């Protein structure tokens, strides 16, 4: 996968997962699952109504104006409009930067899914992760239910998942607070310092978390969340 395709795929997947984390649009947003389409196009959902060039997806990530491809949305304007509304809602939600649990969930889903894409396709990350298995459960400290799970599916691809399964975690990663969680997603904390001072608590098979942490920093460096 070339760099533009990788980054566009990571942005599209993270937008999709970010939208899924918005509770009020959960059901609708499932139709936003991205699909590669032709050589340089990405469709949000199978219907091929909201289709962006990969370059335009990257423009969106940088906060610039980028329109979906006219020839597709004009064929199905109503469904395209619904999807664009959700995407705009997601963008506005992210920009609002509110320190609450809902915001942390959306932010974490967005950032971790991009990391998952890098763990699947970025050569350095793929080599680093090797055949490591998850899952990694992310918590807010002193809560029993995980915020999010990062796991490998049966086809070997990493992805985020909000549904809790009976599977035992390989790593438990807990943020001391919502603020710490947000700062972590925005790469505003040094992970070594945060774990030393108790802002993070990481339990379980740490070598896996070291690798995932490194991949997340590679991802954030190449695709910083621009808020």
């Amino acid at each position: 996968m070339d760099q533009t395709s990788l980054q566009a795929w990571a942005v599209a997947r993270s937008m999709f997962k970010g939208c899924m984390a918005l509770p009020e649009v959960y059901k609708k947003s499932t139709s936003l699952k991205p699909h590669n389409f032709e050589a340089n196009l990405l469709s949000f959902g199978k219907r091929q109504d909201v289709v962006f060039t990969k370059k335009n997806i990257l423009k969106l990530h940088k906060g610039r104006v980028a329109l979906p491809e006219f020839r597709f949305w004009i064929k199905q304007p109503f469904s395209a409009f619904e999807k664009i509304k959700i995407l705009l809602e997601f963008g506005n939600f992210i920009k609002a930067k509110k320190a609450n649990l809902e915001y942390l969930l959306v932010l974490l889903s967005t950032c971790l899914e991009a990391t998952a894409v890098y763990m699947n396709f970025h050569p350095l990350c793929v080599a680093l992760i090797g055949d490591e298995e998850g899952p990694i459960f992310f918590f807010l400290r002193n809560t029993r239910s995980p915020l999010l799970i990062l796991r490998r599916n049966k086809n070997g691809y990493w992805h985020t998942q909000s549904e809790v399964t009976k599977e035992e975690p390989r790593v438990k990663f807990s943020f001391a607070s919502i603020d710490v969680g947000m700062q972590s997603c925005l790469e505003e904390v040094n992970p070594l310092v945060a774990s030393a001072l108790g802002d993070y608590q990481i339990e379980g098979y740490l070598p896996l978390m070291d690798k995932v942490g490194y991949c997340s920093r590679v991802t954030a460096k190449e695709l910083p969340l621009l808020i």
Partner: protein
Amino acid sequence: MKAHSKSDSLFERASQVIPGGTYGHIAPAAGLPRQFAHFCSSGKGAVFQDVDGNEWIDFMCAYGAVLHGYQHPIIEEVVEIQRRKGAIFNHPNEVVVELAEKLTQTIDFASWSVFAKNGSDLTTWAIRVAREYTKRPLIVKALGAYHGVDAWCDPGIGGRIDSDRSDIVEFEWNNLNQLEDIFKQRKDDIAGIILTPYHHAAFAPSIMPLGDFWGHVRKLCTEHGTLLILDDVRAGWRLHEGGSHRFFNFTPDMSVFSKALGNGYAISACVGIEEIKHAASEVFLTGSCWNDAVAMKAALTSLTITTEKKVSQSVLKKGRFFCEKLESLAKGANFSLKMTGPPSMPYPWFEGDENLFLIQKFCKLASEKGLYFHPHHNWFISDAHDQDSLEKSLQLAGNAFEELRSSNL
């Protein structure tokens, strides 16, 4: 809950001026008990104090560097005398000759010694000696084995490029078929094999050599003109007074020591056979402070104590007592704990705890009682662990097992 406010405050200061606050194996890595301090202030015997004044019964011994206990009086006295005279000069102090003579007398196959400061300095130098001697490029090592911080072997992730390891080949510890296959495919390229005396990887139980592992490795090396390098940095002097190869009954071509050699003073040594002495002299080796007379005096005295008092046997015996009792206490609380590896440097492993949650929890509970048990690294017994300190530790560990059982119910 132990106090750690000063420790945290120091760490925050450190993080402003040191990348990551502290680094490497002493970094306050995730998964370690939060009770563990980030900074120590003093130590005596088998006990150390952190900067908040908490006292710990130590089972890491400065990650193996302390064999006779912190501030051993005889070593400290000798060190103090040398310190008053000076440590580093334009030329080496005569102690370098005395120490080299002592090592060649102590290590049965050794006819020469060189010195540096850190284990990595000399594991890396030793593989270069093997390349110089054989005029071949390839080095074979065990998968997951630690040989230091240099790019050919470090366990980190950052800063690495493909060529760093283009002449390094790995095989699974104890898998002689794999090793033989490497020799079949690359026999004319292999300069050396570097191995630890047994497999002591972090985050996993230690693995002892199976059957005649060392005999086979030695035979393969001899048959193919490959040098056998023993990385005895971690295990050295805790298995046998004459080097860990004696414990496993084989003869390497070179051995590298550090850690316990200076009982906490920074020094490393590489010893080798006569046949490669010339090649050794061809490979450049130096460091501004490597001829440190203070550290060399410490090493010379430490070695003398080790051989005269048979300290390796002593720590093995103490470790055996401690490990057996600890396993028994665990069993009494319905946990299947196995102290893997040699008893003088055991790695604790709960059966079925592949993801390490149980050992992390146990070490956390133990830390609340002042026991410095590391959840991911082999522990170390020093000769300063006396019967009282071991029994007290066992009693506290027993309480930790009970709490662990209660919390798991």
